[in-house]
């Protein structure tokens, strides 16, 4: 193990851990805002209790999302100094803008929302959670524009021994970043929606607070169907863009070794990286891959063998992650549709097996989010900035092995411990009914 490998591992650990909390923040902020808006509009107390119950879970999750985000910003300098120096002129801008434009807004108004129940009026209180939701999404936009630039660098020239920004508009209208943002945001909404449905199903199985959790489930189900459909649609456009801008990644996603026209998609395939071919490929759907990649049955899809070996990403993790992600995404659409149907027909409690399944499904959208990032980031290798800078050239020169071993161990232990506590608290308060919920403390009034 060298500094490069361990630094990569550390970035993977810290960003994947961060991303346990981000998608739920994205999705639940919007759902809680919708609940509080219903309360303000209808005056129905149940929606106020909904806001508080789900809002408390939101805050427990939010805390860890915020504090683990700082790690990522610092790591660019700490472990990837050569990268930061080479591309900071253009890559630093979206990060600084994110902090100034979005992160401030989010962090200030979360304080207003959590502590301001008796300080601001109903409407202002609901407005503050909408501001948090908006700012969280806006944060995602700038971060994904930054990531989009690493995937598909635009708006720069090589000058003074580094990449310098020459076109800010190109940076912020980079289709890669915008598509990724769209795909990610609705993926986050999916996590939020399935979280709400799963926790509601748990309570419905026990017959507690039935109206409350049926209403929650219903809101989650509508949100889930809208989100999962959007995930698929935007994901399709995203894949088309990847095929164009990152053909090697696309080939790895589909495990295509030889370029061909009218490329079929094999329903069952398994890559054999050593022999540069597929171990198995069965059930071809003729022309399907060309259609998916270029929206044209006769388009040519480039295979991995058309790239020098040094420019290919690891195929197996990218291929498997992509398949699993797409499979899960499809499953989510079906589940969301069935959920809406059962909820509308008031059949939820008639089919406890379905409710049980929905409880078990809570982790699945999280996993799909992580898989998506594996496709995105492992698939970008060996580049840190696609086609411009190799990951191996990006690592800091001044840090030594013992430092990185120490930090990796430290992060693993600390994150492991905090993740355990956070999930424990989430589970604890998710199981408690809405009656006992107050935002800040254990739930017992006046304590």
């Amino acid at each position, binding site marked *: 193990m060298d500094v490069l490998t361990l630094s990569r591992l550390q970035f993977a650990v810290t960003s994947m851990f961060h991303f346990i909390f981000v998608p739920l923040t994205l999705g639940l902020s919007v759902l809680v805002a919708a609940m509080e808006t219903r309360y303000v509009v209808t005056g129905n107390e149940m929606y106020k209790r909904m806001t508080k119950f789900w809002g408390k879970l939101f805050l427990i999750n939010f805390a860890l999302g915020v504090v683990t985000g700082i790690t990522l910003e610092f790591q660019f*300098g700490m472990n990837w100094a050569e990268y930061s120096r080479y591309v*900071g002129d253009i890559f630093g801008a979206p990060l600084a803008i994110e902090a100034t434009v979005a992160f401030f807004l989010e962090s200030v108004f979360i304080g207003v929302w959590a502590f301001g129940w008796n300080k601001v009026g109903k409407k202002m209180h609901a407005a503050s959670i909408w501001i948090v939701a908006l700012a969280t999404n806006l944060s995602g936009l700038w971060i994904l524009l930054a990531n989009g630039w690493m995937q598909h660098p635009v708006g720069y020239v090589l000058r003074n021994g580094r990449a310098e920004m020459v076109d800010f508009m190109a940076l912020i209208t980079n289709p890669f970043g915008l598509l990724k943002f769209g795909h990610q945001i609705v993926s986050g909404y999916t996590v939020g929606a399935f979280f709400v449905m799963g926790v509601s199903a748990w309570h419905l199985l026990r017959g507690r607070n039935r109206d409350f959790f049926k209403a929650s489930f219903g809101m989650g189900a509508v949100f889930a169907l809208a989100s999962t459909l959007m995930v698929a649609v935007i994901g399709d456009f995203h894949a088309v863009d990847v095929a164009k801008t990152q053909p090697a990644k696309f080939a790895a996603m589909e495990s295509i070794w030889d370029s061909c026209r009218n490329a079929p998609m094999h329903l069952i395939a398994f890559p054999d990286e050593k022999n540069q071919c597929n171990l198995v490929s069965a059930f071809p759907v003729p022309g399907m891959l060309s259609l998916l990649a270029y929206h044209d049955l006769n388009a040519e899809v480039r295979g991995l063998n058309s790239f020098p070996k040094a420019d290919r990403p690891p195929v197996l993790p990218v291929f498997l992650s992509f398949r699993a992600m797409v499979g899960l995404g499809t499953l989510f659409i079906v589940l969301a549709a069935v959920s809406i149907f059962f909820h509308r027909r008031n059949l939820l409690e008639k089919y406890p097996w379905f409710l049980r399944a929905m409880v078990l499904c809570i982790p699945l959208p999280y996993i799909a989010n992580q898989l998506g990032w594996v496709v995105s980031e492992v698939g970008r290798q060996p580049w840190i900035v696609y086609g411009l800078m190799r990951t191996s050239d990006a690592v800091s020169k001044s840090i030594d092995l013992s430092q990185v071993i120490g930090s990796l161990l430290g992060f693993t232990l600390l994150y492991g411990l905090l993740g355990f506590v956070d999930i424990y608290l989430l589970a604890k308060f998710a199981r408690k009914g809405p009656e006992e919920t107050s935002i800040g403390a254990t739930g017992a009034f006046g304590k």
Partner: protein
Amino acid sequence: MDLHIVWFVLWGVLWGVYFMLDGFVLGGGMLHRVLGRDDTDRRVLINSYGPVWDGNEVWLVTAGGATFAAFPTTYALMFSYLYTPLLLLLFALIVRGVSFEFRGKEDGALWKGCWDWAIVVSSFIPALLFGVAFGNIFAGLPMDEAGYHGSLIYLLNPYGVVSGLLFVLLFLEHGALYAALKSTGALSRRAEETAKALWIPLLVVAVGFLGYSNFATRLYDNYLAAPVFAVVPLLAVAALLAVRLFLAKGNTLAAFAASCATILGVVFTGVIGLFPNLIPSNLDALYSLTIYNSSSSDYTLRIMTVVAFVFVPIVIAYKVWVYRLFRGRVSAETLAGDHEAY
């Protein structure tokens, strides 16, 4: 206008404002168990900065982001050279943030006791490390063409330790004043007494720091070249004296404001002395990181200037609104009457 200078000023302001705002949370955190004698006291303290600590910490993220965008070479080298202290800083800030959120979520004495200690330790470490780091930046880091020759042990040189101590005491004073201002009854009085008691050691260390800087750093070169800037350290000293004066008069609000001015004054005193360096080399001035040799291109600086000048005033506006919204003291009674309190 030379945008390098604009960004140098902004860089100093972002750090200054961060220390001014997070300083009282870090200081209060260090005093968490001293001022907060029982669970109610401690909850009062947490609820007094509950609505604002997260927004305050974003000044740090913005200072980091601004360094990245405006001075990427400094960002890259500073963060990789100071790898281990920054790591400890990160751990501490992570623990502090979740401590505020998690502490009230269980009732057990062991649970709360653990998080109380976590708050104390995770507030002390950043205060000390920021001081040590900035002291070493003022004095210059050992860097030349071969890179960096320091280590965590190196950073703990006498001058680094003195500035670390200065930051710890500045934040302790600041935190005690904030607690006096935001709480009631015995807790508020205790905080006020603590602020009075801390003031003497703070004054001693501050004077020591100013004197030591003359030998350990080249900060004063700029003041000799342009004596008009000496007004900044003088104001810092005046503000520190004003803290005690206002405390004697029982005006905690004015004392807290003077403490804000002291922190800003100390940071600006150092930053003015650094100009045009961001991180001087104490081996060979040729390898100092300056606002010219480590900056972004003019184009990037222009874009970032527009962003900063449009959005920073907006940020300040809504932050002022929030501070006004949550003005007033937190007490056992307000907590008992607020089901949503932490």
